[in-house]
């Protein structure tokens, strides 16, 4: 039992934190090896384990970075599963920025894929594809003669249209329609669902670790404000009612940290065991992120409501956690179903 980071991971976290503080963009992050850390050695990277993912995304969340690393890791992981070695290499060196188009409109958190591919073309509509606007490669799920399969699609190709708006989490989301768009089938003829399950579990871990980092920043920001803002002649942090609420908040953040560790430690477990931890962790992190967003705004008071203060985008990022990869209730139901089955 050992809860300390390996020397390599600690070094990566430290240099990542420093680089992000100076405001790193995509290519600087790629250069630093952030993407490499998300892939195993076999895949061409130097990490790929649960704790590699947790370390990288906690730092990205802490810095509030909107670089599309999560989506590149998710889509890139599928490319790796499909043995697209050359593409993965370009993802790791930052040349290719892929995104994964999977969810479809009106499905809520149940990803039922109705998009269809036949021959070299694809038709269908994808929904809420994060970072698609800045991607230069789309990995797309669709049904073909083999069932659920994966395809590589050029976002600039004829028949692909994106409608992009800003995202609650920061960055951008797109609705995408494919109208006889050229598509290249990738990967094995069966088992795409299994690949997607694992990569979504890893992406959920990434999102939860990102939220954890964001919560740490929000906590520090709120503590700073409590220590310095004065009302009635004294720092508001000297008021006991606020102290106790802040204490409760940090206890919940520690619970969220433990939940992230649990999922990181079970990412490589058997699918059922992994799924149980995905749902427990996403439920707890979703709950905690929501609590931290609301309490940090309330403890700040009015200034937190203004866009010019730095808390707003972070609070939105925390609220957005619950709207991606399944919300609190969705994961609770899944947890109950898994426990009942086991």
């Amino acid at each position, binding site marked *: 039992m050992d809860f300390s980071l390996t020397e390599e991971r600690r070094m990566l976290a430290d240099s990542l934190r420093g680089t992000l503080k100076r405001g790193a963009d995509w290519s600087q992050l790629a250069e630093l090896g952030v993407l490499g850390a998300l892939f195993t050695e076999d895949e061409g990277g130097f990490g790929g384990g649960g704790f590699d993912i947790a370390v990288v995304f906690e730092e990205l969340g802490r810095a509030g970075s909107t670089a599309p690393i999560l989506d590149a890791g998710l889509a890139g992981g599928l490319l790796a599963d499909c043995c697209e070695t050359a593409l993965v290499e370009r993802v790791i060196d930052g040349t290719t920025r892929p995104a994964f188009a999977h*969810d479809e409109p*009106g499905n809520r958190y149940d990803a039922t894929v109705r998009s269809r591919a036949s021959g070299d073309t694809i038709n269908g509509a994808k929904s809420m594809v994060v970072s698609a606007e800045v991607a230069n490669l789309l990995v797309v799920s669709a049904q073909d003669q083999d069932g659920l399969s994966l395809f590589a699609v050029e976002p600039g190709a004829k028949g692909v249209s994106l409608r992009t708006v800003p995202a609650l989490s920061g960055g951008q989301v797109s609705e995408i329609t494919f109208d006889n768009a050229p598509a290249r089938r990738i990967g094995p003829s069966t088992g795409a669902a299994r690949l997607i399950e694992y990569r979504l579990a890893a992406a959920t871990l990434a999102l939860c670790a990102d939220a954890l980092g964001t919560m740490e920043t929000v906590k520090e920001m709120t503590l700073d404000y409590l220590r310095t803002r004065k*009302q009635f002649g004294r720092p508001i942090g000297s008021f006991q009612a606020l102290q106790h609420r802040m204490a409760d908040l940090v206890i919940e953040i520690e619970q969220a940290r433990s939940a992230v560790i649990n999922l990181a430690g079970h990412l490589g477990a058997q699918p059922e065991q992994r799924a149980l931890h995905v749902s427990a962790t996403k439920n707890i992190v979703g709950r905690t992120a929501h609590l931290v967003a609301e309490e940090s705004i309330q403890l700040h008071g*009015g200034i937190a*409501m*203004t866009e010019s203060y730095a808390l*707003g985008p972070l609070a939105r990022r925390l609220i957005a956690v619950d709207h991606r990869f399944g919300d609190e*209730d969705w994961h609770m139901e899944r947890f109950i179903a898994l426990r009942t089955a086991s």
Partner: protein
Amino acid sequence: MDLSYSAEDIAFRDEVRRFLRDKLPPELAQKVRSHTLLSKDNFERWHAILNERGWLAGNWPKAFGGAEWNAVQRHIFEEECALADAPRIIPFGLHMLGPVLMKFGTKAQQDHYLPRILDGTDWWCQGYSEPEAGSDLASLRTTAVRDGDHYVVNGQKTWTTLGQYANKIFCLVRTDSNVKPQAGISFLLIDMDTPGVEIRPIVLIDGTHEVNEVFLTDVRVPVENLVGEENQGWTIAKYLLTHERTNIAGVGFATAGLAALKRIARAERAGGRPLAENPHFAARIARVEMDLMAMATTNLRVIAAAAAGAAPGVESSMLKIKGTQIRQAINDLTRRAVGPWAMAFPSEAVEGTNLSHPGPDYAGPAAPVYLNYRKISIYGGSNEIQRGIIAKTMLGL
């Protein structure tokens, strides 16, 4: 005990309903329903419609052109307006300055200003809060120094709601720094066109521009614009806080919000059936609905006591807290209800343009409204301040 309205009250309610059905412009209701920020014209149009009917100033005495409703009638009117998605009445002139002028103003001030509030000549905004004086009004720093027939005002006000539409602002200013903080405050009326008044927008985290900062630099204000005595401002501010907080529980808004939430929960599909039939989501809705049923009665109890002449007291602190909890819970459930659609956030705050939201019509406002309404537990005396009031004045702690 009798929980039902009297025959007169019911007749009045029906009259209000008929009026709203006939006179509320559908395009205004549609904007309110979709949580679109109304233009100045929109508000003025609705005010004029109400004024024509004699219902703009429900709380004013008839002598001043008001409807002189009792607390129950006011409640009925507010609730029906909320349920019909009518624009809200801008309270600064009608519910705040008006009553202050009636109580503390000179005859000349009453004769000059009150009609201009009713006919829409003046749009008032409020200059109370300052960057360093949020919940703690006693620490305000804006100064007014007497110079002949004028006060020279310097300072900064903030959280000035819809100040961008206003031509007038009423301000709390410090006129004496040598007494204890509450004693040296005065209540001053300022024309926004006066040189030295500068207004700057504050964008909120949902991307809306509702509130402003107002900078006051060597602003010369005629002494006849003082309301009440010099250094009587604290008394006036307290009068406003305890006597003119109508509709503090927001039962009508909550009821309308709950109905909208239920519509969304029936429209959204989760796991092959309407979200409304998911037991966990149904439980979340049921809990807030039961709470609202109880709060509506708490609210009526306070209103009935007020109509019977009881002075409003600590009950408004209790209604403020429970009212904001319930409204925020409904906003939170609405955000949850729209699911992944909430990921899209086509906000001016982020983009500066007005992209339309993907997904169904109801999806767009869910997250921004949720974010915007975090303010209601902060402003008007934060819920923490209200808990302190309850502990001290009601519980004797």
